[in-house]
C-alpha cells in the first residue's frame, strides 16, 4: 500500500511539471486562440538566461526576477516581430510559424550555450518529508505549491480583471473587440509576454530535476499538451488537474500494468489525448464552443 501511495506521490510530482508548462499553453490559447508549439523551447531559453545570471554570480532570487522580466519583454517582442506579420492568417499558418520558432530557439540555445548539460541550482531544499514510510521530496512540494499559486493568479486574471475580460473578447472575436475599443494588438502582445513568463517559471522549476540542455523541454511539451487537452485548453484549473492526472496515470501504468512498463509509458498521454478528443473534445474543465447559427 505504501508502495502504491509512493507511486501516486511521484506521479503528482511529475504531473506538477507537466502542469506548469500546460499553464503557459492555456494562457496563450486564452489570449490568442492559437497553440504555441515553441512554448517549451521559449521556457528552456529563459532557463538558460537564468542559468547565465547565476553563473555570473547573481543570487538565485534576483536572477529569477530578472529572468521573468526579460521573458515577459522577450515574449512581447516575439509577438511583435514574428507573430504580428501573420496575424489574421489561417490558424495553420500561425501554428507553422510557432513550429519554426521551436526549431530556431532550440538551435540558437545550442549555438550560444552548447549542447553540454548544465546543472541548475535548486531553489528548494534537498531531502524529503517523511510520514508513515512515505517520502515526499521538498522539491515536489515546492513545485506543487508554485504551480498552485500560478494557477490561482491566472484564474483571478481571467475571471476578475478587465484585462482578462478584454483578452477573452479578443480571443473570441478580434474584430468586435476592436470595435468596442479594446487594443487588440497590445492584448495579444500581453498574452505572449505573460505566457513566456509562466513558461520561464516552468523551465526554472524543472531544470534542477532534468538538467539544463537545449532539448530539456521537448519531452515535457508532449505531456503538457496531453495535460492541456485533458483539462481543457481554456481552463487553468483544468490544465493543472490534467497535468496531475497524466502524471499519475503514466506513473501507475509504468509501474503496475505489465505490458506497458517503461517501454510504452510515453504512449499513455497519447491514449489520453485520443480518448478525450473522442469523448469530450472540450476537455474535462473546458467549455464547448457554441456557434450561433
Amino acid at each position, binding site marked *: 500500500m505504501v*508502495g502504491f501511495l*509512493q*507511486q501516486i506521490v*511521484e506521479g503528482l510530482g*511529475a504531473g506538477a*511539471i507537466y502542469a506548469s508548462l500546460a499553464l503557459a499553453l492555456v494562457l496563450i490559447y486564452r489570449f490568442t486562440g492559437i497553440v504555441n508549439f515553441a512554448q517549451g523551447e521559449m521556457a528552456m531559453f529563459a532557463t538558460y538566461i537564468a542559468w547565465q545570471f547565476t553563473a555570473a554570480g547573481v543570487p538565485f532570487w534576483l536572477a529569477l526576477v530578472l529572468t521573468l522580466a526579460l521573458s515577459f519583454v522577450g515574449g512581447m517582442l516575439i509577438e511583435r516581430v514574428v507573430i504580428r506579420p501573420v496575424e489574421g492568417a489561417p490558424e495553420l499558418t500561425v501554428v507553422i510559424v510557432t513550429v519554426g520558432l521551436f526549431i530556431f530557439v532550440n538551435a540558437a540555445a*545550442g549555438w550560444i550555450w*552548447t*549542447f*553540454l*548539460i*548544465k*546543472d541548475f541550482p535548486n531553489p528548494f531544499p*534537498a531531502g524529503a518529508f517523511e510520514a508513515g514510510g512515505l517520502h515526499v*521530496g521538498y522539491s515536489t512540494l515546492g513545485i506543487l505549491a508554485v504551480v498552485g499559486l500560478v494557477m490561482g493568479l491566472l484564474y483571478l486574471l481571467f475571471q476578475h480583471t478587465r484585462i482578462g475580460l478584454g483578452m477573452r473578447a479578443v480571443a473570441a472575436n478580434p474584430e468586435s473587440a476592436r470595435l468596442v475599443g479594446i487594443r487588440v494588438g497590445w492584448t495579444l502582445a500581453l498574452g505572449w509576454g505573460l505566457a513566456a513568463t509562466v513558461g520561464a517559471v516552468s523551465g526554472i522549476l*524543472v531544470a534542477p*530535476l*532534468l*538538467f539544463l*540542455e*537545449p*532539448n*530539456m523541454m*521537448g*519531452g*515535457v511539451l*508532449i*505531456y503538457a499538451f496531453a495535460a492541456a487537452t485533458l483539462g481543457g485548453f481554456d481552463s487553468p484549473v483544468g490544465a493543472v488537474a490534467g497535468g496531475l492526472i497524466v502524471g499519475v496515470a*503514466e*506513473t501507475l501504468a*509504468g*509501474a503496475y500494468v505489465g505490458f506497458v*512498463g*517503461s*517501454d510504452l*509509458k*510515453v504512449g499513455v498521454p497519447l491514449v489520453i489525448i485520443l480518448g478525450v478528443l473522442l469523448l469530450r473534445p472540450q476537455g474535462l474543465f473546458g467549455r464547448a464552443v457554441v456557434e450561433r447559427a
Partner: protein
Amino acid sequence: MRVSALGCTAVTALLLLAATACGGREENGAAATATGACQGQQTTGITATGIKLGGIYPLSGPASAYGDIPKGIKAYFDYVNAEKNGIGGRKVEFVVRDDGYQPPKAVEEARRLVEQEQVFALFQTLGTPSTTATWDYTNQRKVPQVFVATGASVWGSDKAHPWTIGWQPNYISEARVYAQYLKEERPDAKVAVLYQNDDFGDDLLGGFKKAIEGSGIQVVAEQSYEVSDPSVDPQMRNLAQSDADVLLNVTTPKFGSQALAADARNTGWNPLHIVNNVAASITVLQPVGFENVQGVVSSTYYKDPNDPKWASDPEMTLYKAKMGQYAPDADPSIPYHAFGWAVASSFHKAMEAAKCPTREGLRDSMRNLQNVQVDMLLPGVTMNTGADDGFPIESMQLMEFKGERWELFGDVIDTRQEFGPVGE
C-alpha cells in the same frame, strides 16, 4: 499522336545519353587502378605523395560535443605531415563534413566525399545511426570505411560489409568487462539495469546477460527509457524497489546525469553504480556534483589527458606539445581530442601495414592487425583483427571515480580471451 511519339523518341534519346554519360564516368572511376603486384586495385584518392581522407561528424546539433574528435585527428595528421613526412611519404589531407547527427545528411555527405572529393577512404563516420545509413553505400562503392566511431557490435560481426570496420571496444565487450569485474568482486550480485531502448542499450544489456550466464550473478530488475522521455526518475524509482546491490547504468549523457543524480538523492538505496563509457565523461559527472559520484565505476581503453598518471608519459607529452602547436585553439585536456589522436595514429599504423597502397590494400590491412600497439591506448590494450575477428579493440580497464577524476584500477581485461569471440 505524332507529337507524343516524337516526345517519346526525345525522352529515349535523352535517357540513352544519360546512360552513356554515367557509364563513361563509371569507367573513369575504374580506370584509377594500380599496376604491378597490386594490379587492378583501386587507387582513387591516393598518389605517391598524398592520400585524401573524408570524415563525417556532428559539428552542429545535439551531438556536437563529438565535433572535437576531428580536431585531435587533424592535429595528428598535421604533425605527421610536417615532421614525419606523412604516412610512408604520403601527406594526409583530411576533409571533415558535418552531418548534424542526421543519417540522411550523412548519406549525402558520404556521396559528396566519395564522388566529388574523390577521397581514398572514409576515415570515421560518427554514431550508429549515421554509420548504418552510409555503410551500404560505401560497401557498394568498395570504399573503405575505417574505424567508425560507434560501439555497436554489428560492425564486427556482420559479414556482408567487409569495407566497414569499427575501432573502439564494442558494447558487448564493454558489458563483458563489467561482468568479469562482478564475477570477481561480487560473485552473487543482484543487478538492476537502466538502459536506453534502442540498439545501443540492447547490445550492452544483451552482452551483459550472456556474459553472466552460469554465474551466481542475476539481473533482478530492468527498466528502459526512450530518448524522448523527459526524465528517468520513474525508472530509477522502480529499480530502487528491487533492492539490487549493483546498478548498471546504460545511458547516453543527459540520462546518465539524471540517473546518477537520482541514485545520489535516494539515500535508502546505495548500490554499486556502474556507468557505461558513453556516459562516463567528466561533463556528465560534473553537473551531478563530484561529491555525489564518488565510487562510481566505469571502464576505458585510452589515456585520459587529465590523469596525472600520464603526466610524464612520452606519448601524452608529445600529444600535448603537438596539440599546442597544430591546434592552438583546442583544449588538449578534453578527452575527445585524445580520442582523435589515438584513432588517427591507429589509422597511421593500419595504412603503413597495408601491402598495397590501394583501397583493397587498406581493407585487407584493417582486417589483419596483429598486436598493433598504439601509444595513446592504455598499456596492454592493443589492436587485433583477423579473418573472423572484426573488432580491433576488445580490451578495457576498469576505473573508479575518486575526488575529481577517474582512477584506473585492476588489470586490463581482454574480453576475447576471457569470453571468446563476440557473437558466438
